[in-house]
C-alpha cells in the first residue's frame, strides 16, 4: 500500500508530526540512521576538493536539460526506438498505470518483479496492478520489508529507515510465507542472517518471474541509455533476467549527453549512501537480445512545475536523500508524516507542486520546515529548498485567524508611529502578560517555553528619551 492514492485524506503535517513525536522507538531509529548516513556523506564530500564545482556543474546540466526538455525527450525517443525499444508517453498517473497494465497483459503474465523506483510509487502502480489481478513483487531489500509489513516507505533511499532489525525479523517471520518462500525457522535479528533470508526468498522470485518493472536514475538523450544505480544487485537481476522490461521514468530524469554521467556518478553516490561509488550501475539502450523493452515517460504534473520560475528547480532533484538525512524536522518525525512518497525537505516542495495544495495536508507541507537551510547546503544540484518553501507559502491558502493576525501585525509595522503606540501599550500592561500560559495561538508557545518579560521601555523610547532630549 505504498502508492500516492493511499495517502489521500491524511491529516495535516503538524497533526501527523505530533503523533510521530510520541513514538520513541521511531525517533531512536531515525536519529541513529540519519546521523550515520549524515556522517558518511560529510566524510566523502569533504575529501573532494572540487565538490562545489561538481555541484555547480550538476545544477547547470540539469537546468539545461529542463530548459530544452522538449528537444532532449524526442532525441531520447528516437535513439531508443532505433535500438529496438518502445517509447510510451503518459500525461498522468492513470495513463501510466493503464499503459503498464496493458503491456503486462500482453505478455499473459500475472506477476511482475520490481526494481526500487520512486516514479512507480508516485503513480501507485502496485495498487493499480493489484486491482487488475497482477501482483507486483518488490525486490529491493528495504522495499521488500515495507511490502511485507503492509507499510509505507518513509525515506527515498532507505524506505524502511523507520524499522530496526528486531522489527524486520518480526516482519520476515510473520509475512514472508504470504508472498513466497517463508523465512527460515528460528530467524535471528543478526543483519547477515536477515539478509540471507531475504536472498533466499528473492532468488526464487528472480528465477521465476518473466516481467520486470523499473524506474531509472538517468535517461541519456543522445544515446537513449537508461541508468540505474543501486547497492544490492537485486535491481540488476530484475533488469536482466525477465523477458519483458518496462521502465517508468519521469521526464525530468533526462541528461543531455553520456559525458554528463561523469558529474552525476560522482554526485549521487556520495550524496545518497555516502559511498565514493555505488556497487552496481546498470546501463541499457533499447532492447537487448531476448528481451522486449518499453519506456513509459511520465509527466504527472512535471510540466506544470516547469512553468513556475522559482518552483521548477525542484525538478533538478536526483533523489539522493541528502536533504532528508540532514533535516532536523525529518529526523524527529520520519517520512510518513509528509503523506507522500517524497518526504523530507524535497517532499515539502515537490509534493505540493505535483499534487497542488487543495488538501489540508498538501497545504501544510511548505510549513514543515524551520527554514534552517541545512538542506540547501547539502543538495548536490543546489536546489534552494528554503527559497521554494517560502515561495510556496505565498501561494498556499491561509487560515482566516492567521491572516487576521498577520494583517494586523503588518498594519502596525507599516508606520513607525503605530509601532510606537503598540509598544507603549505593551509596556503599560506588561504586568498582565502571563509568563507560563498564553491564550489563543500563544498557548502553542507556552506549552514548553516561558514568555520573555516585556521591558519597561522599548528601545525606540529609550533612544528618544536619552538621545533626543527627552522624547515628545
Amino acid at each position, binding site marked *: 500500500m505504498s502508492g500516492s492514492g493511499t495517502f489521500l485524506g491524511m491529516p495535516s*503535517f*503538524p497533526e501527523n*508530526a*505530533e503523533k510521530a*513525536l510520541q513514538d520513541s522507538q521511531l*525517533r531512536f531509529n531515525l536519529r541513529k540512521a540519519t546521523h550515520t548516513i549524515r556522517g558518511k556523506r560529510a566524510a566523502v564530500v569533504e575529501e573532494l576538493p572540487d565538490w562545489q564545482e561538481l555541484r555547480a556543474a550538476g545544477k547547470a546540466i540539469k537546468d539545461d536539460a529542463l530548459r530544452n526538455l522538449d528537444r532532449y525527450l524526442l532525441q531520447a525517443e528516437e535513439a531508443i526506438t532505433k535500438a529496438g525499444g518502445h517509447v510510451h508517453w503518459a500525461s498522468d498517473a492513470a495513463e501510466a498505470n493503464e499503459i503498464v497494465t496493458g503491456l503486462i497483459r500482453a505478455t499473459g503474465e500475472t506477476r511482475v518483479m520490481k526494481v526500487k523506483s520512486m516514479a512507480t510509487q508516485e503513480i501507485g502502480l502496485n495498487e493499480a496492478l493489484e486491482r487488475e489481478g497482477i501482483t507486483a513483487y518488490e525486490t529491493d531489500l528495504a522495499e521488500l520489508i515495507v511490502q511485507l509489513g503492509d507499510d509505507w516507505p518513509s525515506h527515498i533511499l532507505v524506505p524502511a529507515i523507520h524499522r530496526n532489525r528486531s522489527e524486520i525479523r518480526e516482519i520476515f517471520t510473520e509475512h514472508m510465507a504470504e508472498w513466497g518462500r517463508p523465512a527460515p525457522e528460528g530467524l535471528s535479528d543478526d543483519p547477515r542472517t536477515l539478509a540471507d533470508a531475504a536472498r533466499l526468498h528473492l532468488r526464487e522470485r528472480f528465477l521465476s518471474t518473466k516481467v520486470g518493472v523499473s524506474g531509472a536514475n538517468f535517461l541519456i538523450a543522445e544515446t537513449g541509455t537508461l541508468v540505474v544505480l543501486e547497492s544490492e544487485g537485486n535491481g540488476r537481476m530484475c533488469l536482466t533476467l525477465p523477458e519483458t522490461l518496462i521502465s517508468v521514468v519521469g521526464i525530468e530524469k533526462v541528461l543531455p549527453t553520456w559525458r554528463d554521467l561523469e558529474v552525476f556518478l560522482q554526485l549521487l553516490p556520495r550524496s545518497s549512501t555516502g559511498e565514493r561509488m555505488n556497487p552496481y550501475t546498470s546501463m541499457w539502450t533499447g532492447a537487448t537480445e531476448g528481451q522486449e523493452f518499453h519506456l513509459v515517460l511520465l509527466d504527472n504534473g512535471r510540466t506544470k512545475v516547469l512553468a513556475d*520560475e*522559482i518552483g521548477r528547480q525542484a525538478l533538478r532533484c536526483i533523489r539522493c536523500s541528502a536533504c532528508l538525512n540532514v533535516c*532536523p*524536522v525529518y529526523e*524527529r518525525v520520519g517520512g510518513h508524516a509528509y503523506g507522500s512518497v517524497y518526504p523530507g525537505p524535497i517532499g515539502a516542495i515537490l509534493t505540493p507542486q505535483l499534487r497542488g495544495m487543495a488538501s489540508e495536508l498538501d497545504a501544510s507541507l511548505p*510549513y*514543515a*520546515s*524551520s*527554514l*534552517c*537551510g*541545512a538542506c*540547501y*547546503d547539502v543538495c548536490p544540484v543546489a536546489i*534552494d529548498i528554503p527559497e521554494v518553501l*517560502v*515561495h510556496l507559502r*505565498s*501561494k*498556499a491558502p*491561509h487560515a482566516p485567524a*492567521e491572516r487576521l493576525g*498577520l*494583517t494586523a*501585525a*503588518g498594519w502596525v*509595522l*507599516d*508606520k*513607525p508611529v503605530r*509601532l510606537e503606540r*503598540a*509598544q507603549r501599550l*505593551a509596556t503599560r500592561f506588561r504586568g498582565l502578560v502571563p509568563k*507560563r500560559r498564553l491564550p489563543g*495561538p*500563544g498557548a*502553542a*508557545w507556552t*506549552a*514548553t*517555553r*516561558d*514568555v*520573555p518579560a*516585556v*521591558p519597561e521601555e*522599548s*528601545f*525606540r523610547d529609550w*533612544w*528618544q528619551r536619552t*538621545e533626543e532630549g527627552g522624547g515628545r
Partner: protein
Amino acid sequence: MRVALFITCVNDTLFPDTGKAVVTLLRRLGCEVEFPTAQTCCGQMHVNTGYRDEGVRLARHFLDVFGGYDAVVAPSGSCAAMVREQYPKLAAGMGATRAGAFASVHQGRSPFAQEVAEVTPKVYDLSEFLVDVLGVTDVGAYFPHRVTYHPTCHSLRGLKVGDRPVTLLRNVRGLELVPLPAADECCGFGGTFAVKNAGVSAAMCADKVANVMTTGAEVLCAADNSCLMHIGGTLSRQRAGVRVMHLAEILARTEAAR
C-alpha cells in the same frame, strides 16, 4: 562613517538592552551611531509565513529608511540575512510575474530591484561589521564567565558569518568559551514554525538544551534574540539555571563598567 542601527522589531519591543549594548559598543569603538526612528521591520515574518505582499511593503519601507547610510548594523543574523540574502531573491522573483503590478503602485520611484542592489550590500550583522568593516577582533570586553555559543542558522548558512562571533568571544578577557556539541543544528525556532509546528519545534529545542547542559556553561550566547527567546524560554521553563545573552551584551561589558 555614518552608521545606522537597525534594531529590528523584536529587539526594539522585547530586548532593548541588546540595542543599548550595540550603541555602547560601537561608540566605544569610535563610531557615530544613528538610529533612524522611521524604521520598523524587515518583513521577514510576513514573507516567510507566506504574506509576500505585506513583506515587500515592509521591505520597501526598510530601503527608504536605510538608503543613505555607509553601513547598517543589525544585532540579528536572521534579519540581516533577510535583507541581504532574501531581498534580492524577492526582487528576482518579482521580475517576471509581479513587476508590472508593483511598478504601477510605486510609480515614479526607482525599481525595487535597483534599490535592493544599492542598499543591501551595506547591511551587516554585528559580528561582520566589527570584524570586516571596523577590523577589530578584540573589542576590549571583560566577561568572566563560562560561555557556550550557538551559531544560529541564518548567521551560519544565510550570512555565512563563519567564526567571526567565536573569534570576538575568544578575545573577551575572563571569558571561558566551551564548544557546544552539534552546534550547527537548528534550535527549532523558525519564526511562526515555533507555533505552527510547536511539537517538532519543542523536540528540536529539547535536544539543543540537552547539548547546552553538557557544556556546563553559565551563559548561552547567540547573535539572534529570536532563537535565544526560544531556547531561553525552554531553559527557563526547565529551571535549568543557564542564562541566555546576546553577543552584543557580552561584547559591551568592560571591567570599568562592571
